[in-house]
């Protein structure tokens, strides 16, 4: 049992986490993202599955791809993903790994 899915982020996770970080810390980024998700995501080096997970608000896929838990949690709140949806998606993974 570990508190951490990745003890060191993979390169894929780094790119994904960079999006989650910049979206909620750079002043204009969240509006730009919400205005045109694909154009915003083009700014980053992302794997296909990381890009899709972000675009689709796929909380389980974000977790599995190595999103830092604090960045993922903040992203869920910042994107106003309802608690039952975000927490439910994570809990549905229990026992599958």
């Amino acid at each position, binding site marked *: *049992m*570990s*508190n*951490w*899915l*990745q*003890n*060191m*982020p993979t390169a894929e996770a*780094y790119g994904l*986490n*960079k999006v989650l*970080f910049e979206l*909620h*810390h750079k002043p204009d980024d*969240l509006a730009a993202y919400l205005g045109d998700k694909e154009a915003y995501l083009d700014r980053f080096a992302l794997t296909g599955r990381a890009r899709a997970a972000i675009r689709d608000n796929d*909380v389980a896929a974000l*977790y599995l791809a190595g*999103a*830092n*838990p*604090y*960045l*993922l*949690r*903040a992203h*869920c*709140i*910042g994107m106003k993903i309802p*608690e039952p949806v975000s*927490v439910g998606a*994570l*809990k*549905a*993974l*229990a*026992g599958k*790994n």
Partner: protein
Amino acid sequence: MAEIVAIHAASHTPVMLNFPDAIAASEREEIFAGFRAMGAAIAAARPQALIVLSDDHVHNFFLNNLPALCIGAAPQYPTPVEHWLKAEKRILPGDAALGAYLLSRLMESDFDPALSMELTLDHGVLAPLELAGVARDIPLVPILINCVQPPLPTMRRCHAFGVALGRALRTYPALERVAILATGGISHDLATPRMGMVNEAFDREFLRLLEAGDAAGVVKYSTEHVHEAGNGAEEIRMWLAAMGAADGAHFHRHYYRAVPNWYTGIGIGEWKA
């Protein structure tokens, strides 16, 4: 020379501010009363500066540059950094001179804290200060321990850092009265399939070991069992640092409740000579 006139520890969670109504009013009021009592005790000790041992939840630091330990040395700290946190934007006073002194003294003690002269503090500092009612009054020195992205500093190292921090504070010539607030934990888990888990048995044993004053026992238990208590429980590092700074003072548990609907085991306590 400064005296450490108060050392407190308390949990923090953004849920306290964002979704307080996720728990029953009676439970919430009991917890808030515990924080107010802590604030009253801090105020009654009349500290001229408050060291806040906490963690940065990936707001000031990112994976491009992530210090294991960071000491703030700024005259003021804007807060909160989270655009989604339900908290009034304000600027908290800082004690830059004390931060600078601690950086130098801890370097001389063979620790290697990063320095920061500009931090926008997050809920990990703001939430407990806000609930305690001491968010505006006392100049702060934030000390941020990485609990949020492995590799993490060891529990042993965090306790030893606290010992050195306490020694450094007691040699500070420019103030007479300083206080410490350690904040984080106890058990909780965020954004994993275990989210919502609270490990009450872990929390109670952790608090029992603190009350027993068994530093080696607390370090060993924390190291061996933290993975049973969730990624948020990694924040007990701040409690271990406070224990080190307390230099043998006795820990008193003032409050504990497992609060699954706030996703957190909420603990409040203090070290008193």
